[in-house]
Structure formats: C-alpha cells, structure tokens
C-alpha cells in the first residue's frame, strides 16, 4: 500500500479533495452581500425607535399609502403577466423578422431613468391628437361612456398603476422568456404531433411546466412595482390620500428632514415585502412539491 502511494506521486492518480475551501469561498463571497443587506436594515432599525414606527402605523396618510402600494402593485403584477406571457412565449418559440429590434425595445423601460419614464408618460398623455383631444381626454370620455364616470390617468391612481406597469412588465418579460427558453420545446412538439393545436400545447403543456417561472416573474414584478417611485412622482404626483404610495411617503418625509419617519416607513415596506414574498414563494414551492409527489 505504502509503495503504491509513493508511486502515485510519480504517476498521479486523481484524488477527490475536500469541498470545504470551495464552499467557504462561496459563503464568503455571497455572505458579504447578504451581510451588507442585513447591516443596512440593522442600521435603519437602530436609527428609528418603536414609537416612530407606531406613529407611522397610526398615521392615516401612511396607512392609505400602504394600501395603495399593495393594491397598485398587485394589479400591476396581474396586468404585467398578461403582456409578459405572450411576449415571452413569442420571443422564446418563434423567429421572425425584426426580433432583435423587439428584443431591444423591451429593454428600454429597464435602461431609461425612472424620471424619464414618468416624463414620457406625461408627454404622451398630454400630446394633442388633433380635434382638440389628447390621450388623457380619450381615457376620460371612454370611461365616461363605459362606466359613467370620468377617469383620469395623469395624477390619478390609474396613472400610478400605469407607471409601475411600464417598468415592471419589462422585468416580467425578461424573466418569463428565460423560463420558457429553459423548457425544452420537445414536449410541446410531441403534443403537436399527437394532435394538439398550438394553443392547447401552450395551455396544457408549456404553461404548467413554466409555473415556477411565472411565479418568479410575478414576485419580481410585484417587488419591482412596490418599490417604484420615479415615474410615479412625475406622472401621478404626490397627492396625499390620492396618489401617495409608500416610496412617495419616504420621499415626502425625507424632503422635510424627517428621517425618523422616512426610515420607519422604509422598514414597514421591508416587512410587507418580506411577508408577501415569503408567503408567495412558500405557496409556489408547496405547489411544485405537490406536483412532484403526484
């Protein structure tokens, strides 16, 4: 045995070394980032006091802003999925002329500074369309005709949702496209040869398969929209009890030097986001586990 071992130094045999240094390296690199996140939260928490938090929770403005944040980002998520699933599917499964252009266009909302997106929406909706009307006016008259009430887009709640949607949908598209790309088209092709239509293959084969991707896209969209601020400030304003979302509250409190309240609201957002994301992911994981068991 000893001999063989000494021989092996001359003609080296592969030996499995320890995984520990590698894992430690991973933990160090990754831990640095996680530590940074946790440290900022701790610093935030130390900057504020329980009474600041309680005051923030009692304030009707902040309660309204929290509800509007939850409502608008949930609606944005649903709407984003409705555009992101088709776009992601088309980009992933088809080749067509101008695809590179479409792909690049979808990056614009991600690349543009948020303020510019708000400004662009503002310009678009006030742009004269001829006949003395604007897009804003058309929204008003259409809604008046449909539901008997004049809805506004600019400086109103629908504007908050549109501003969030502009940015968040782009993220949903990216995520879903990757999710569809990773699923081999093989199963769908089998379904097609077995007599399915494309629509059936999509609904019965691809979409169930992509469930996790859809969930990931939904959580990312939601998280992105609840933190959205720049375009909302410009396009929807910062009207209390109307278009004030939680990031707006932080901005408004900060703008009068009330850092305690700003931090308290930020922590409130962190808690809300954590709860929602953990619950959704747990539900999603449960579902995939359930499917695997079946």
């Amino acid at each position, binding site marked *: 045995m000893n001999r063989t071992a000494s021989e092996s130094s001359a003609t080296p045999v592969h030996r499995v070394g320890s995984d520990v240094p590698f894992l430690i390296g991973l933990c160090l690199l990754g831990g640095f980032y996680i530590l940074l996140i946790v440290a900022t939260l701790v610093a935030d928490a130390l900057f504020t006091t329980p009474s600041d938090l309680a005051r923030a929770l009692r304030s009707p403005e902040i309660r309204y802003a929290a509800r509007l944040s939850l409502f608008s980002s949930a609606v944005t998520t649903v709407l984003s999925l409705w555009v992101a699933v088709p776009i992601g599917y088309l980009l992933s499964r088809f080749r067509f002329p101008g695809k590179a252009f479409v792909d690049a266009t979808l990056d614009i909302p991600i690349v543009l500074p948020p303020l510019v997106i708000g400004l662009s929406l503002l310009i678009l909706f006030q742009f004269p369309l001829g006949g003395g009307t604007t897009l804003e006016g058309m929204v008003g008259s259409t809604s008046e005709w449909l539901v008997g009430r004049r809805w506004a887009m600019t400086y109103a709640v629908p504007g908050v949702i549109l501003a969030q949607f502009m940015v968040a949908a782009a993220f949903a598209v990216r995520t879903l496209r990757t999710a569809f790309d990773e699923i081999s088209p093989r199963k769908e092709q089998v379904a097609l040869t077995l007599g399915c239509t494309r629509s059936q293959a999509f609904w019965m084969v691809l979409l169930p398969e992509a469930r996790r991707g859809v969930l990931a896209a939904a959580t990312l969209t939601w998280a992105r929209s609840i933190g959205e601020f720049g375009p909302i400030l410009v396009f929807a304003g910062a009207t209390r009890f109307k278009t004030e979302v939680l990031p707006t509250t932080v901005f408004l409190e900060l703008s009068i030097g009330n*850092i305690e309240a700003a931090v308290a609201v930020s922590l409130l957002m962190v808690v809300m986001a954590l709860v929602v994301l953990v619950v959704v992911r747990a539900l999603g994981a449960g579902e995939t586990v359930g499917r695997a068991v079946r």
Partner: protein
Amino acid sequence: MFKSFWLAAAISLAAIGLLAWAFVATSARDSATGDSTSADGSRAKDEPLVVYCAAGVKPPVEAAVNDYRKAYATRVELAFGGSGDLLSRMSVARSGDLFVAADTDYIEIGRAKGLIAESLPLATQTAVLAVPKGNPRGIKSIESLVAPDLRIALANPDAAAVGKEAKSILEQTGLWEQVRRAVETRGVFKPTVTDLANDLKLGAVDVAIVWDATVRQYAELEAIEINHELHSPQTVTIGVLRSSRQPARALHLARYLAARDAGLVAFEREGYKVVKGDRWQNRPALTLYIGGVLRPAVEQTIEEFRRREGVEVNTVYNGCGILVGQMKSGGLPDAYFACDRSFMAHVADVFYDPLDISRTSMVIAVTKGNPHGIGGLNDLQKAGLRIGVCNPQQSALGALTERMLRETGSLERVMENVVSQVPTADLLVAQLRAGGLDAAIVYQANYARVKDHLDAVSLGTAAAVAVQPVAVCTQSPYANLASRLVEALRTAASQKRFLASGFEWVGADRPVLLGSP
C-alpha cells in the same frame, strides 16, 4: 384551448375587481373625513341654497339657476333687490349663501365688513343713458340731462349699484346737484335698475341712467353712450357669504354661474359682456407644481382649500429645475409655486404675473456642535471638509449657491470640497444627519425643521436670499379657481404656517390679477 384562456382572464379580472373593491372600501374611511361637504350637488340637501341677487342681473341668473336646479336636483332660493339694499339686508340677517352684486364695489364693502369670503367675476356692464326707441327728446350726452322739463329717473345711490355709478358720473361733470333737484321735482328715484327700465318702457319718464345690458333686454329702449372718461365698466361679481353653512355647495353653484360653458352662456345671451370664466366641471381638478421646500408651509392650506371648494387638487412637489423641465416639455400645471424668482422667469411666458409670497435666507447647516468650527463662507475652503450643495441646473437653491460663491470669489476652492451635489436641499439635510457631510448650504426653511439635530451658520450676505413667487397658468381651464387658491395662500392662517415652517412672509398686497400674462 380557449377555455383556459377565458378562465385565466376571468380569474385576473376577478382578482383586480376584488383588489379595487378592497382598496376603495378601506380607503373610504380616510377620504370621508375630507369630503363630508362634497360638492357633488346631485345629492339635494334639506337646506336650500339662498342667493341674494342684484335685480338688474335677474334674467341671466334666473335662467342659469334654473338649468342648475335641473342638472343637480338641488333647491336654490333667489332673493332680488338693489345691490346696496341686499348688502344691508345680509349684514343684518347674517344668513344666506351667495350674493350676486351688480358691481364689485359691493363685494369689497361686504368683504371689509367680514360678510364675504371668495368672489368670482361674471360679466361687465357699463352705465348708459336709456331713452325710448327713436330718442324722441333728442338726448345726446350726459349734459342733455339739464334740459328743462325733462323727466329723469335714477336709481337710488344707496340702494343700487347703477345709482351709485350715476351719482359718480354726475358729480364728475358737476351736474349732480342740478340733476338731483330735477329728479326730485319732475322725475323719480327707484330702488333697482329694472324699475327704471319699466318706467321708461311705460313712458312715465324720458330718460334714465341704467346698465347697457339692461337696455339690451328691452326692445323698446335705446342706449346712448356716456363719455368714457367719466366711468369704466363695472364687474358683475358673485361672492360667497361667510354665513354659509354649506360652503362647498355654495361654491359649486358659484363656479357653475361663473363657468364659461355654463352660467356665463346665459349672461351672454342676455347681452352681457362676459369675463373669461373657467370651464365647467362638476368636480374640477387643479394641478399644482410646488418647489419641494415649500411643502410643509402649504400642505394644510391646500387641504383646507380642497375641502372648502369641494374640488380635487393634485400636487407635484419637486426640485424647481425638474418642475421647469416638466413644464418645458408640455406638462403645464394650473399654478406653480417656485422656490425662487429665477425659476419662475424660465416659464414666465405661460403664467400670469407672479406674486411673491415668502422668502428664506440661505445658511450653512453643520453637524450639531459645529465640530469643524465653521464660521462663514470662507471656512468652507478648509481642506478636508465634506460639503454638500444643490445642483445649480436642477434647483433654485443650487443656482443661488453658485451665484453667491462666484460673487465672493470662492466658487472654485469651495467646489473642491464638494462631495455631494443633489437636486433638492432636503437630501443634503438627510446626508448631514446621516453623518455623510460636514456642512451643506441649505435654506433657513430646510434647517428650521431639523434645528434640534443640526446647527446653522448665517451667511450674512444679501445675495443669500430666495424669494418664493406663485403664479397661475395662462393655459389653465380653471384659472379663476387657481387664483382663489393663491388667495388662500395669502391669508393670515397661511402666513402663520409659513412662519412656523421657517419662512419669512412677503405677502404682496395687490390682488391676484389674471389680466396680463
């Protein structure tokens, strides 16, 4: 598979509907506090609105109010009389909601007596000599009134606006005493302009001084102009009474009467020259652009205004450079409250004359206890200091800071120490408080809110003052509504809030003018 598609669509719609319902239902509590006096006139209240109305403007007001009653199923009671009569009536009764005066003077008298709050202009009318068609007595000018045996009718100067106007014209020509005696012997003094027109129509008198609009309402009469140097057009104005227990409803009706596509149409039909009124909207929405530093000073005033008028107010707070950028790209607000005159000048062509409201000086905010011993502008050049300033393009404060540093010749050396350039001063305060800066040049008003946490060093130069003007946009469909908001910002209650927020009060005395852009 279309079934799956419809299922997904139905679930999505249901989810959105449920979310919207939950949001609206839970928010109703909050907004209910603000909208108890909702201007939505469709809900007829038990108490009718009482409008005191100058008799001369009865035809258009009655027509417009009838339309209003139908459109909003609400009760409105009209009481007619001479403007002066009505004014003394309401100062005794201390009740009622609105007052339509034939001439703004009565509104001003009422305001001085504490009877009237807001006022809205409606139309203009001019005093003329009225004679029967064909002018049988050959009247040419005001001097013709001294002709013997002429039967003259005038309105009582104390009771009616047109009587006051006639007296003023005659006094300027030196004919008042002579004409007054002639009226007392052969003619008649009547309490309202309508009585004068009726007397003329019946042939009981030969000539009367009435409003041009009155003559247009009587086919049997003809007008002779009075020398323009003696008088100017008077403005029919509606005032909201302080006695009104339902100001939002009263203002709703007042806005209706003063709207160019609602009440003013009736005035135009009756021959009045109408003012450029606001566009009619049951619940109009004003959009305000406001420099970020002003928010604590104006927020409550705006909220009170919104409730009293029963309108929507959208507020956009940001650095003035950013707001100007938004305006340049076409997003015009109804009114703009700038951090400094310099940032009003950029967009002056689309605003009526700005009014200065407040001012605030600039200070160097430093860490509590001033550990670096900063005593003035010169100390900012000390090596190793971390200084924050505002961006000169994005904010008024930044532009003022740059100008001041350039004038004192320290711009380059101070800029070497500048580690943070931001669009609004509040970010500097936040950075200071978080320990990222040693000193920052901010407004006194920024500092005033955090004086427990920071110290401030005075700059002591006259250049270091920013003046905050507010202006109404010439393109606004609600320019009159916006100017009432500006008025609200100039009240004593608003002044208190400005002072409490660390501003000094400038509060110009002249009224808000929508005349010249």
